[in-house]
C-alpha cells in the first residue's frame, strides 16, 4: 500500500534506525533529468509522519546544492556520542566528490551544512556503503576500479582495500559484509564482483558468471549468513538475481528469475532475511525470498521503472522507491487497502461539505461510487509469508489464579531451521505474597483442626503491639470457659487477686481499727464485706476506699453495746422518736437531712422495698463522689447509663462492669453500644479499642467496619490481619450464639471477597473458595465464585458434590450420615442417563457394569424444594399431610416410575466440613445438581415421599445385597450436573422385577439429612435399606441416651398441641438418628458423651433448664463439627420440653 509520495527525480536515503522521527533525504539525481530539464540541484529532507493520513510527505528542510547526486547514504556515525544527533549524510557527487553533510544542520536550516568534501575519485561516485560495525568507516566507489575506505573521524586521506582490479572498470556497487566487519564486496557493470579482506588488504575472491552477461546493478550481503550474497543483473537478456555462496563460488547457489527485464536495484531487508526487494525495467517491484526464490509480494505500482529502492531501516515494513517519472513513493509491504486512502480523501471531501458520518461506519457517502473501486487492484494482498517482525518471539500472559503463561521461540541459529525447533509453552504460578499465603494457610489449618485456642495463643505470643496482643487475647477467650471472667482478667481485673487485695486492705483497716480500740467490730465487718462483695469489689478496684463500709460498720459496732435512747430535740432525738414510733420514712428523711447516709440506708432497708428504693435514689442524688455513678448503676442495674455516659477514657472500666453484671441478653448490645461510642467519639487510639468491645459483643460486622476504618486495609497483609480476626470471631460466635453461620453483612462480604480475590491471585483457588461468602447474591461475588469453580476445573454447581465425592471416596468416614460411605460403592446409576446429560466425558469406568447385577437401592429423595426446580410431575401427588406413623407401603410400579422420574436421586455423601463457612448440611446448590431423572435398574419397594421433612422415607431392599460394594473406579453420579427435569427417562426401560419389602418397612425411617441446620424447613431425607443392614447396635452403656431422648420427644409430642411444634419434634426425632449413628460408630469424644449422660440425668429429673445449661457447656467446649449435627436438635427438644413442662 502506498503511504506517501514526493514528486522528485532524486536519489534517496533513509535516516538510520537510531533516528527518530524517520526522515527521508532526497538529492537531485545526476543521472536523470526531470520534466523541467532543470539543472539546479537540491538536497531535501522529509519526515515520514504516518499519523498524517495524507499522501504528502512533510518537508523539513531544503538545501540548495551545487551538486547533483549519484548516491546518497545516511549513516549513524557519531549518533551514539550525540556529537551528531542525526548522524552523517554522505553523498556521491558527479566529479569524484564525496561530500559529508550534517543532516541536523540541514533540518535546522543552517547555511553551513557541509562537514567535509573530498574530490579524490575519478568520475561520478556511484557506490557508497557504511560499515555496520564501525560506522565511521565508509567505502566509496567510482570509475577506474577506484575504491576508497574513508574514516569519518579522519576524513583527510582515504585507504584502499587493495590493488585495483584489472581491467579497470566502473564500480557500481559496494557492500560491507553484515557479519564480518573487515569484508567488503564490490561489483561492476561488467558482472564481476570482488570480495575484499581489509585485514589482508587484498581481494580474496572474485565472483563471476560464466556467460559474462551479468551486468551488475545491485549487490547485497545476506543479513544473517556471512558467506552469501546476491548480485542483480541489469541486462535485459539476463534479468536475474544470483545468490552466491562464497564457499561454492564456482556457480550461483540460486538464480531468481522473476523479472522479465533487467533488474535496476535490489535491497535486502535487515529485519527479515527472507525479504529481498528488487525493481526492474519491467516496471515491477517484487519482494522475494532469496533463500527459496519464491516471490512473496508484488508491489502495486504504476508503469514506471524504478531505479532505486530502499528499505526503511527503522520501520521494517516501509520502503521507498524512486521512479523515472520523477517520483519517490513510500510503500508499506503489509498490504492494506488503497480504498482506505481514497476513503480518507472522500471523507475529507465529505467533511468539507459538512456531510454525514465521516467516521466509523465505513460507508460515509453511499450514493457516491468511487470510480477506482471497481478495479481489482484496489485491494492489495499482503506478503505471502508473515514477515519476521510481526511474529512474536516471546510472550507472557497472566491468567486467573496468578498463573502466568509464557512462551518463547528459541533463537534460530540458521535461517530455515526454525521450523524444527520445538516451541514450549510454560505455565508458572506467580506468588508474590508468601507471608500472606503462609498466614492464610495457618488460619485454614486452625479452622479445620478447630485449634482456635492454640491459634489465638500463637497470635498473642507473636503480637508486635499491645493492641494486637489484646485483640487476640480477647478472641481467644471466646473459646475458653468462663469467657466473661477471662475478659475481666484481660481488662486487668482478677477476682482472686482482688479478693486478696481486699482482705489485705481490710486487715490493715482492722489493725488500724484495733489501735483505735474498736476491735470488736471486726467479725461483723467481715461478714458484711462478704455479703457485699460485689460492691466492694468495684469500689476497691476503682481506687476508692472502704469509707462507706467503714462508716456502716463503725456505726454498727457501737450498736452492740448498751446504749441509751436519746429523745431530745436535736436530730438524734427526733430520730429516736421517729424510730420509736415506727415512722421509718421520717427517720430516713432525718438521717438524709443530717447526711447520715448509712443510717438512712439501714433504716430504709427495714422500712421496706419502696422506701429503700426512694432512699437509694435520694442518696445517689445527694452523693457526688466519683464512684457514685458506678454504684448507682450497680444498684439500679442500669448499665446502659454507664456505657452511654462514662468518660471514654474509662472504657475499660465500663466494659468490665458490663462484663460483670450485664445479663446475657443485653450483654452484646451493651458492648456494641460502648464500641460505637468509642468509634464515633474517641480519638484514633480509642477507635481501635472499639474493636475489643465488638469482639466481646461478637459483632463481626462492626468489627470489620471499625477495623477497616482504623487500619490501612489495602495491603494483603493488612487484609489478612482482619480476616484472621473475623474468621476466629465468627467461629466463636457460632459456638456461643445460635446464629446463622452464613449470615454475612455487606461489608464483611466485600472484605471476604477481596480476600478471596487475593488468595486466588496467589493461586490458592481452593482456599479462596472456602473464604468466599456462600449466601450472597452480590454479582461480583457470584462471578468470582463461578470463576473460582472454573479454575478448579469443575463446573460451579457440581463443585461441592464432586469435592465431597473425591474426598470421601477412599475411606467412608464414620461421621457420614445415613450410609454415605456404603452408598458410594453401591449406587448403580443407569449408564444411559449419563450419556444423555453429561457435559464432560469423565465418568467411564463403571459404565460397563451390568445394571441388573448391581444392588438396587437408589434413594427416593424428596423432590420437594422451595426453589421449585424439581416440581413433581403431573399425576404425582405430594402427600403433605401424611402422618409419620403411616407405614411404608408397596406402591404400584407405575407410581414409582412417575416418582423416580420426578425426583429420585442417588443419595450423595455429605459435604466435608472443610468448607467451614458453609452449612454442614446439603445445600441447595448441591441438590440441584443431582440428576433428577435417575432411572433405577431394579424396581424399588416403596416410593414414599417426604415433602416437608415429616413425610416418610422410602425404604428399599436391594435385590442382591451389595455384591459390588466398593466397585473399583466407581464415581458417584453427582459429578455430572444435569438440569432438573431433563427428559430421557423412560418408564418402559425400567427392568421389571419383584418388589421386595424390607423387614423394617413397616416402621417409618428416622434418618434425616445429616447435620441439617435447624431453621431450614426443607430437610432432604433419605433412607437406605443397606444402611439398616450394616448398622451396628448402639453400645449398651449409651442406649440410655437414645431411650431417654426418644421418650422425651414422645412425651412432648403427646402434650404438644400445635402442628408446628409436632412437626418440629418429629423432625428432631429423625435427626437424632445422626447422634445414634455416632454412638454406634463410637466416634464421639468422652467429654461429649459424659455431657450427654448428665443431660439425660437432668431430663430424668425433669430439670430441663439444667439440661440446657449442660447443652450450652457441651457446645461451647466441644468440636463444632462433631456436634453440629445433633446438638441443635437436642436444644430444640429440651427447649420444647421445658416449655411444655412434660
Amino acid at each position, binding site marked *: 500500500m502506498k*503511504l506517501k509520495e514526493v514528486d522528485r527525480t532524486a536519489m534517496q536515503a533513509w535516516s538510520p534506525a537510531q533516528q527518530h522521527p524517520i526522515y527521508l533525504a532526497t538529492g537531485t539525481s545526476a543521472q536523470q533529468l526531470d520534466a523541467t530539464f532543470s539543472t539546479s540541484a537540491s538536497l531535501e529532507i522529509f519526515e515520514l509522519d504516518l499519523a498524517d493520513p495524507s499522501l504528502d510527505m512533510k518537508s523539513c528542510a531544503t538545501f540548495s546544492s551545487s551538486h547533483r547526486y549519484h548516491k546518497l547514504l545516511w549513516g549513524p556515525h557519531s549518533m551514539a556520542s550525540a556529537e551528531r544527533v542525526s548522524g552523517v549524510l554522505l553523498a556521491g557527487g558527479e566529479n569524484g566528490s564525496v561530500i559529508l553533510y550534517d543532516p541536523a544542520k540541514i533540518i535546522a536550516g543552517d547555511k553551513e551544512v557541509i562537514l567535509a568534501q573530498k574530490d579524490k575519485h575519478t568520475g561520478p561516485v556511484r557506490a557508497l556503503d557504511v560499515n555496520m560495525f564501525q560506522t565511521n568507516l565508509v567505502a566509496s566507489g567510482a570509475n577506474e576500479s577506484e575504491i576508497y575506505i574513508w574514516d569519518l573521524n579522519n576524513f583527510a586521506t582515504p585507504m584502499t582495500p587493495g590493488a585495483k582490479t584489472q581491467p579497470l572498470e566502473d564500480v557500481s556497487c559496494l557492500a560491507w559484509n553484515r557479519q564480518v566487519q573487515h569484508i567488503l564486496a564490490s561489483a561492476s557493470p561488467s558482472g564481476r564482483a570482488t570480495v575484499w579482506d581489509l585485514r589482508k588488504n587484498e581481494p580474496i575472491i572474485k565472483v563471476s558468471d560464466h556467460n559474462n552477461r551479468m551486468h551488475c546493478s545491485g549487490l547485497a550481503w545476506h543479513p544473517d549468513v556471512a558467506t552469501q550474497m546476491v548480485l542483480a543483473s541489469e541486462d535485459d537478456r539476463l534479468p536475474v538475481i544470483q545468490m552466491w555462496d562464497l564457499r561454492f563460488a564456482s556457480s550461483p547457489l540460486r538464480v531468481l528469475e522473476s523479472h522479465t527485464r533487467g533488474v535496476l536495484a535490489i535491497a535486502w531487508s535487515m529485519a527479515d532475511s527472507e525479504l529481498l526487494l528488487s525493481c526492474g525495467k519491467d516496471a515491477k517491484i517484487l519482494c522475494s525470498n532469496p533463500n527459496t526464490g519464491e516471490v512473496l509480494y508484488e508491489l502495486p505500482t504504476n508503469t514506471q521503472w524504478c531505479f532505486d529502492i530502499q528499505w526503511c531501516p527503522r520501520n521494517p515494513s516501509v520502503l521507498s522507491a524512486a521512479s523515472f517519472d520523477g517520483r519517490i513513493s513510500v510503500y508499506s509491504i503489509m498490504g492494506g487497502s488503497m480504498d*482506505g486512502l481514497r476513503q480518507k480523501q472522500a471523507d475529507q471531501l465529505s467533511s468539507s461539505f459538512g456531510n454525514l458520518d465521516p*467516521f466509523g461506519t465505513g460507508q460515509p457517502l453511499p450514493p457516491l461510487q468511487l470510480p477506482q473501486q471497481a478495479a481489482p487492484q484496489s485491494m492489495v494482498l499482503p506478503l505471502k509469508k*508473515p514477515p519476521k517482525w510481526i511474529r512474536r518471539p516471546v510472550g507472557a500472559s*497472566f491468567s486467573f489464579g*496468578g498463573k502466568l503463561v*509464557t512462551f518463547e521461540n528459541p533463537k534460530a541459529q540458521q535461517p530455515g531451521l526454525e521450523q524444527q525447533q520445538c516451541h514450549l509453552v510454560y505455565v508458572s504460578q506467580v*506468588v*508474590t505474597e508468601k507471608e500472606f499465603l503462609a498466614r492464610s494457610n495457618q488460619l485454614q489449618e486452625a479452622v479445620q483442626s478447630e485449634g482456635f485456642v492454640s491459634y489465638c495463643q500463637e497470635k498473642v505470643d507473636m503480637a508486635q503491639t499491645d493492641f494486637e496482643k489484646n485483640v487476640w487475647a480477647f478472641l481467644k477467650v471466646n473459646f475458653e470457659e468462663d469467657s466473661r471472667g477471662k475478659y475481666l482478667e484481660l481488662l486487668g481485673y482478677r477476682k482472686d487477686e482482688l479478693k486478696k487485695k481486699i482482705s489485705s486492705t481490710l486487715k490493715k483497716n482492722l489493725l488500724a481499727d484495733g489501735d483505735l480500740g474498736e476491735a470488736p467490730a471486726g467479725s461483723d465487718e467481715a461478714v458484711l464485706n462478704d455479703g457485699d462483695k460485689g460492691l466492694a469489689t468495684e469500689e476497691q478496684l476503682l481506687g476508692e476506699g472502704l469509707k462507706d463500709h467503714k462508716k456502716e460498720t463503725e456505726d454498727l459496732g457501737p450498736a452492740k453495746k448498751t446504749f441509751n435512747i436519746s429523745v431530745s430535740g436535736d436530730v438524734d432525738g427526733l430520730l429516736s422518736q421517729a424510730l420509736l414510733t415506727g415512722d421509718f420514712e421520717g427517720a430516713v428523711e432525718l438521717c438524709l437531712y443530717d447526711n447520715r447516709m448509712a443510717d438512712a440506708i439501714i433504716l430504709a432497708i427495714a422500712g421496706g422495698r419502696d422506701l429503700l428504693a426512694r432512699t437509694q435514689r435520694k442518696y445517689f442524688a445527694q452523693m457526688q463522689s466519683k464512684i457514685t455513678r458506678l454504684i448507682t448503676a450497680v444498684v439500679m442495674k442500669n448499665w446502659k447509663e454507664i456505657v452511654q455516659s462514662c468518660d471514654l477514657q474509662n472504657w475499660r472500666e465500663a466494659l468490665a462492669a458490663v462484663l460483670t453484671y450485664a445479663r446475657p441478653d443485653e450483654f452484646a448490645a451493651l458492648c456494641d453500644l460502648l464500641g460505637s461510642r468509642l468509634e464515633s467519639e474517641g480519638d484514633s487510639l480509642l477507635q481501635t479499642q472499639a474493636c475489643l468491645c465488638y469482639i466481646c459483643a461478637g459483632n463481626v460486622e462492626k468489627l470489620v467496619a471499625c477495623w477497616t476504618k482504623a487500619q490501612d486495609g489495602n495491603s494483603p497483609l493488612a487484609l489478612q490481619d482482619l480476616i484472621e480476626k473475623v474468621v476466629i470471631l465468627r467461629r466463636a460466635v457460632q459456638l456461643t450464639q445460635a446464629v446463622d453461620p452464613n449470615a454475612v453483612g455487606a461489608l464483611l462480604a466485600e472484605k471476604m471477597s477481596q480476600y478471596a480475590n487475593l488468595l486466588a491471585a496467589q493461586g490458592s483457588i481452593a482456599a479462596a473458595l472456602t473464604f468466599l461468602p456462600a449466601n450472597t447474591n452480590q454479582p461480583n461475588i457470584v462471578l468470582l465464585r463461578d470463576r473460582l469453580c472454573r479454575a478448579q476445573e469443575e463446573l460451579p454447581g457440581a463443585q461441592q458434590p464432586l469435592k465431597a465425592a473425591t474426598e470421601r471416596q477412599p475411606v467412608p468416614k464414620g461421621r457420614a450420615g445415613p450410609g454415605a460411605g456404603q452408598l458410594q460403592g453401591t449406587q448403580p446409576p443407569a449408564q444411559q442417563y449419563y450419556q444423555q446429560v453429561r457435559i464432560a466425558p469423565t465418568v467411564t469406568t463403571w459404565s460397563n457394569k451390568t445394571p441388573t447385577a448391581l444392588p438396587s437401592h437408589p434413594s427416593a429423595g424428596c423432590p420437594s424444594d422451595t426453589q421449585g426446580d424439581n416440581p413433581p410431575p403431573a399425576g404425582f401427588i405430594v402427600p403433605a399431610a401424611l402422618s409419620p406413623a403411616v407405614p411404608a407401603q408397596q406402591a404400584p410400579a407405575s407410581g414409582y416410575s412417575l416418582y423416580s422420574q420426578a425426583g429420585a436421586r442417588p443419595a450423595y455423601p455429605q459435604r466435608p466440613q472443610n468448607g467451614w463457612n458453609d452449612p454442614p448440611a446439603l445445600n441447595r446448590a448441591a441438590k440441584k445438581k443431582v440428576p433428577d431423572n435417575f432411572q433405577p435398574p431394579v424396581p424399588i419397594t416403596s416410593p414414599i415421599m417426604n415433602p416437608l421433612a415429616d413425610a416418610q422415607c422410602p425404604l428399599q431392599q436391594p435385590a442382591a445385597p451389595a455384591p459390588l460394594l466398593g466397585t473399583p473406579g466407581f464415581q458417584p453420579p453427582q459429578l455430572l450436573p444435569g438440569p432438573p427435569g431433563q427428559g430421557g427417562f423412560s418408564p418402559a426401560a425400567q427392568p421389571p422385577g419383584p418388589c421386595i419389602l424390607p423387614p423394617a418397612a413397616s416402621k417409618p425411617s428416622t434418618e434425616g439429612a445429616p447435620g441439617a441446620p435447624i431453621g431450614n424447613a426443607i430437610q432432604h431425607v433419605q433412607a437406605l435399606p443397606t444402611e439398616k443392614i450394616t448398622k451396628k447396635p448402639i453400645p449398651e452403656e449409651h442406649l440410655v441416651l437414645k431411650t431417654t431422648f426418644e421418650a422425651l420427644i414422645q412425651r412432648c409430642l403427646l402434650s404438644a398441641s400445635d402442628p408446628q411444634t409436632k412437626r418440629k419434634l418429629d423432625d428432631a426425632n429423625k435427626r437424632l438418628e445422626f447422634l445414634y449413628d455416632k454412638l454406634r460408630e463410637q466416634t464421639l469424644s468422652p467429654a461429649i458423651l459424659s455431657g450427654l449422660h448428665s443431660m439425660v440425668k437432668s431430663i430424668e429429673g425433669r430439670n430441663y433448664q439444667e439440661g440446657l445449661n449442660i447443652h450450652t457447656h457441651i457446645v461451647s467446649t466441644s468440636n463444632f463439627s462433631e456436634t453440629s449435627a445433633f446438638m441443635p436438635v437436642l436444644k430444640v427438644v429440651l427447649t420444647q420440653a421445658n416449655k411444655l413442662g412434660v
Partner: protein
Amino acid sequence: HEGPVWQVAWAHPMYGNILASCSYDRKVIVWKEESGTWEKTYEYTGHDSSVNSVCWAPHDYGLILACGSSDGAISLLSYTGDGQWEVKKISNAHTIGCNAVSWAPAVVPGSLIEQPSGQKPNYIKRFASGGCDNLVKIWKEEDGQWKEEQKLEAHSDWVRDVAWAPSIGLPTSTIASCSQDGRVFIWSCDDASGNSWSPKLLHKFNDVVWHVSWSITANILAVSGGDNKVTLWKESVDGLWACISDVNKGQGGVSAAAEGQQRQ
C-alpha cells in the same frame, strides 16, 4: 485459518465457550463449542492485511470484539443476536498497522467505585490501541460511533502491545504499553473525564518489548522482551516500578514452579 494465528481470546463464559482468533490470513474467526466440538460461528474478512490482535469487550457490554489489523484499521464486531454480527470499522486507526487492542474495564461515569444497582448502567466504552505509528490511541464510543479520544505519544517506535489494567475499584485508569524501542510506559489517568494521561517510564529494555500483561489484581505487570525474558514488575508504595522477578524459561518466577509444559 490459512496463515499464522497471532492471537486468540476467550469470551466471557457467560456467553458459552467462545473463542476468537485472528490471523495473518486477514481473517477473524469466532469459534463456539457446541456439545464438545468446536465450530466456526462467524468469520470476518473485512481486513485487508494481517489481523494482529483481538480482544473481547468487558462482558457487561455484550459480545463485542475489537480487532486490530496491519491494514491500519480497527474493527468492532458486535453480536446482535440470531447469529448476526454488526461491524463498525475505524479506518486508518494506525497508519501501516495496528498491533494491539485492549479494552478498558467497564466503568460507569460519575460513579467510578460504587454503582447503584437496579437500572442498567450507562457504560462509557473505551479501548486502547497501539500501532506502527508509534502511538497509543484511546477510542471512545459516542452515540454509537467510535471516536479517537486520546493520542498518547511517548514511544519512538512501533507500539507492540497495549494492556489496559483491570479495574480494582480505584478511580484511576492505567494502561501499559510496550514498544519496539524497548520502552515500557505506564499511562495513568486520574480524572474521570479521561483526558489527562501521563506516562511513566517503567523501564528501557535493550531489546524489543513484545508483550505486556497485567495480573488480575492489576498490581503486577508481566513484560516479555526480545531477549526471551519475561520480567514481573510491581509498583511500590511510592509509585516506583520495580522488577520483582525474572521468569526465565518458565522455571523462574517468584517461587514459581513450572506446572506444566506442552507443545505449542
